[in-house]
């Protein structure tokens, strides 16, 4: 019989493989302390044996990407492209697709009324450029008018971002990203343009 048993702090130290030599010797001789130590060790061993299931190897990179994206989302200024219900990337691609496709269509089909109009329009430089556009509209040039209207609409949807972000291959990607409804709308726009006199 021992007059004094080990404190919980010392017991814990012994359980975790520490403790002073006299304390460990005490545990060897004292049945009650030894029972305590054995029970605590068994509990700890059972608890320690439970491991976290390893997630998919792809998970770690996915987690990093999510974190990076959430930080970027927080830092990015509220963009006009983020219209209600339409993700920003989708909105940008849609506009890029429309603008590029229409520009291509107009370039292929549009015949200027006369060379003087072409000369006026060929160098849209600052305010002079917009004056030239006004001239073209006044002259009833529907192809250019269509582009001007499109530009006005697109400007409201962050045209600057759109033009600045155009990269090779973006039009193809944008067209592939369009939904059926968006694709139908684009075809409608192009067909309308193609039906214009002089196309």
């Amino acid at each position, binding site marked *: 019989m021992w007059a004094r048993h080990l404190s919980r702090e010392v017991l814990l130290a012994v359980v975790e493989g520490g403790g002073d030599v006299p304390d460990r010797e005490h545990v060897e001789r004292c049945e009650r302390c030894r029972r305590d130590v054995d029970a605590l060790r068994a509990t700890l061993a059972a608890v*320690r044996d439970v491991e976290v299931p390893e997630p998919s190897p792809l998970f*770690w990179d996915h987690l990093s990407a999510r974190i990076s994206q959430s930080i970027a989302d927080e830092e990015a200024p509220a963009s006009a492209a983020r219209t209600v219900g339409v993700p920003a990337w989708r909105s940008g691609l849609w506009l890029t697709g429309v603008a590029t496709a229409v520009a291509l269509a107009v370039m292929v089909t549009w015949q200027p009324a006369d060379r003087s109009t072409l000369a006026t329009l060929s160098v849209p430089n600052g305010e002079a450029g917009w004056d030239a556009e006004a001239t073209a509209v006044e002259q009833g040039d529907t192809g250019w008018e269509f582009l001007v209207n499109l530009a006005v609409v697109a400007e409201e949807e962050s045209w600057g971002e759109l033009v600045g972000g155009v990269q090779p291959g973006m039009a193809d990607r944008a067209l592939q990203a369009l939904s059926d409804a968006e694709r139908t709308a684009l075809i409608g726009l192009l067909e309308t343009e193609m039906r214009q006199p002089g196309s």
Partner: protein
Amino acid sequence: MEEAGGLAATWPGLEPAHAARPEAGRGPVRDHESHDGVETSPGLEHLDDVTLVDAVRSGGREAFDLLVVRHRRAVYQVCYRFTGNHEDASDLSQEVFLRAYRGLTSFKGSAAFATWLYRIAVNACLSRSAGQKPQADVLDPDRHVDTAHVAADVALARSRMAARVRAAVAQLPRKQRATVILRVYHDLPHEQIAKVLGSSVGAVKANFFHAVRNLRRLLGEAEN
């Protein structure tokens, strides 16, 4: 499926409390090897955490990406220990790093970045778990135990025991639960745990002792 390796050294920059453990042969997986999802500059990889934090404060976002790569496994494991399921652990891990990013200005560097991150993780987990019971993943021996090398009955017994232990840990009072998770599964020294939890070392030791005793009682009850 391969289980997570020994957790002792999963948190870089922290010395494990035990030099050797029974599962010491299964070393931790270093996350630096693969991070295709977010490219980090190779030039940053030799920098320590504090230097990377300074770089982030100076506008170097990619330095934070590298901090994430270094610490994501440990953060996820802490979160998993608290929540008991992958989905919540994944969401919480993201939240922890987001909180860390927002709060980098408050990181003074007096403690290790890992300790600071642990504190955020534990606080986030405790906030999330307040008034909410952990939802353990559906018992799936194939997922939790390497059945290729263990007989089916042994695997099932281990899986059941694991479920009982998780349930018992989930029943512990908050600080006891946090202490057990940080001490047993992450091998943090008592002093480090005290810093994480904002307690004294004595309080941590007392919490740990009571936690283990409570676990012993809870596991005994579950057995009976």
